[in-house]
């Protein structure tokens, strides 16, 4: 019985596994010099996106997302507001500390703010953890794979010209997030498509409204302390 359970478990995991194989280049020098795709921000930035929300196959509407991100400190501050300008959610995260200033339903449910900030980090920051593999996917595109401390895998893939894909897999290899970043107007984050697979599958299509670097004055952010 124990072996049957184990077999079923393996089959189940295998059926969930969608993590593709990354093949290292044959030549060692090529492998060593192979750069990982990196669309990620190099300095502190404020970005404002119009976000179209689809959940469970239905269009849910559109909102405005404001994000301030610092790749060096991994600081994230974000706000979601309605088209009319009403703030639905405002939160920030410094290190492990999450502060929620405002969260109206349904944005106050469960770990919504935490998951949102995790998604923002996934979009804008270099993956943390161990670089496990770099090479090519079966379709020939360059890919690098990291494994985070919690066991999740992050693939960063140089897709078609001017686009990068980021995929997040669970320990078992289940695809949890698919992100496609497309550069259109000079900013690498002109269009971001995020597909999330949770209790309810959802898609966010983010179109850049505005982006600008946030200046830091000698150890002090130009953003006022709250």
């Amino acid at each position, binding site marked *: 019985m124990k072996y049957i359970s184990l077999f079923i478990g393996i089959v189940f995991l295998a059926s969930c596994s969608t993590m593709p194989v990354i093949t290292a280049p044959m030549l060692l020098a090529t492998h060593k010099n192979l750069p990982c795709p990196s669309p990620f921000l190099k300095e502190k930035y404020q970005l*404002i996106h119009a976000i179209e929300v689809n959940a469970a196959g239905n269009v849910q509407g559109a909102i*405005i997302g404001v994000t301030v991100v610092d790749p060096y400190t991994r600081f994230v*501050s974000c706000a979601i507001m309605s088209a009319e300008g009403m703030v639905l959610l405002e939160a920030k995260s410094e290190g492990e500390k999450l502060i929620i200033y405002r969260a109206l*339903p*349904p944005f106050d449910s469960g770990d919504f703010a935490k998951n949102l900030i995790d998604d923002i980090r996934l979009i804008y920051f270099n993956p943390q953890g161990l670089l496990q593999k770099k090479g090519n996917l079966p379709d020939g595109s360059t890919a690098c794979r990291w494994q985070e401390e919690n066991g999740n895998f992050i693939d960063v893939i140089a897709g078609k010209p001017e686009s990068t894909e980021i995929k997040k897999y669970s320990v078992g290899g289940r695809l949890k997030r698919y992100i496609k970043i497309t550069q259109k107007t000079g900013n690498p984050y002109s269009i971001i498509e995020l597909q999330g697979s949770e209790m309810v599958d959802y898609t966010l299509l983010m179109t850049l409204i505005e982006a600008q670097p946030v200046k830091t004055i000698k150890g002090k952010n130009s953003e006022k302390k709250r």
Partner: protein
Amino acid sequence: MNNYRDLHRYFYVLVCSFLLLSLPLTVFADSFEQLRKDSADIQTIQASFVQKKFMKILTKPLVSEGRFYYVAPDSFRWEYLKPLRSVVIVHKGETRRYTASGGKMIEDKSGGAQAMKIVLSEVTGWMSGKFDQNPSFTATLKEGTNTLITLSPAGKSMTGMIEKIEITISKKAATVKSVKIIESANAATRIDFTNVEINKVISSSVFQDVQ
């Protein structure tokens, strides 16, 4: 559903702020009673607006632009054109809200928009010039270099939503200078209106078509 209720309150405040534009320019002396009399002549209003959202997270205000239409007694269209297009229409007792998605205007079918009917009844009171009789706000009028009307939430319905609304009327230019909605210590919304037209014919299609 609470967020919809909050959205309606927010929309309500925006609309109410705008409706203060309908105040005839000569009546900003010291009389709310005079306002009520003069507001009775208003049949239509239309204007463009620029909305600036101030938040600590924003290094500079988020600017939205749009149009507003009103036909007495109860038809409204409040439309944002930039940066994210959205429309709220109140007409013949029905309320609809649309946002742009996939290049189309998608109607909010969540039921939230219908709850805006509650808002409508309050707005009707404002349209009658009953600025000092709305139970949701207490109104004060102060004369100075400019005329300042301050609306403060009277009950708990606006708690956490609005701290106060300030409408500044320029005496020199005899126009509404600004409407500022102070939501909290960290957030405020300022709306500037231009091209205000009173009692000019507005087609009924404005309250029916969303493209």
